[in-house]
């Protein structure tokens, strides 16, 4: 699957972000990661199509049955939406 990897100095946690390229909260999430040097992988689901999109949506729904964005996986925890406090807590930033 075409996840993009963003390298960062802080790679203490495994961070995967399911996002939409058009969504303001997804953008805020990326900015929060970037400004804190977090290493993460992300995919903009609106830019995928066909079977690839279906497979990714299935994965998102396993983590977050609503299938909404952003869906963020930090190690074995899932954060739905831009919940800055919770994200900071899980990333210890």
């Amino acid at each position, binding site marked *: 699957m075409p996840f993009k990897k963003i390298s960062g100095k802080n790679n203490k946690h495994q961070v995967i972000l399911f996002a939409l390229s058009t969504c303001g909260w997804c953008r805020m999430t990326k900015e929060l990661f970037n400004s804190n040097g977090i290493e993460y992988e992300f995919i903009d689901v*609106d830019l995928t199509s066909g079977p690839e999109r279906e497979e990714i949506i299935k994965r998102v729904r396993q983590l977050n049955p609503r*299938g909404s964005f952003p869906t963020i996986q930090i190690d074995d925890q899932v954060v739905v939406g831009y919940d*800055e406090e919770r994200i900071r807590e899980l990333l210890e930033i």
Partner: protein
Amino acid sequence: MTEEFPPEVVKLYEQLKKEAEEAGYNLNPDRNFTLGLVAALLTNEKRYGYRACPCRLALGDKEKDIDIICPCYYRDADLEEFGACYCALYVSDDWIAGRIRKGSIPERRPAQFFISGYAEPAPVTNTGEMTKLSLPVWRCKVCGYLCARPEPPGKCPICKAGKERFERFI
């Protein structure tokens, strides 16, 4: 951080701001955040032919996405309950004044619409005295505007939603 936005984005931003204020709504005063959303509305318009909600995954079929064309059917309820629409493009006075926590809000759109798209609710069935009306009453599904006339207006005078987003109310 200030970003440069193309003139068509700034133009649509000004238009939406004016329309919102005239109808008693506010655009998010965080200009950069809001310009980003307006740019996304234009991206979606180019992509799908209509301004699908930037924070939701559109199916690319207008009928299935009709409830999430901006302004969406969920905006007013979200403004009422959380002080912001799902994308935070529209926000309430309390939100602007900082009396409400700023952050994402829960999704109100029914979960099944994410998979199969919007399903038209059953039409209103006329009973009893309703039938005595000389004209049908049309309801804007975005903002609730009601009018009695032979056909719904081409554009909602309040929220500017298109004719196809009206339902027969009575």
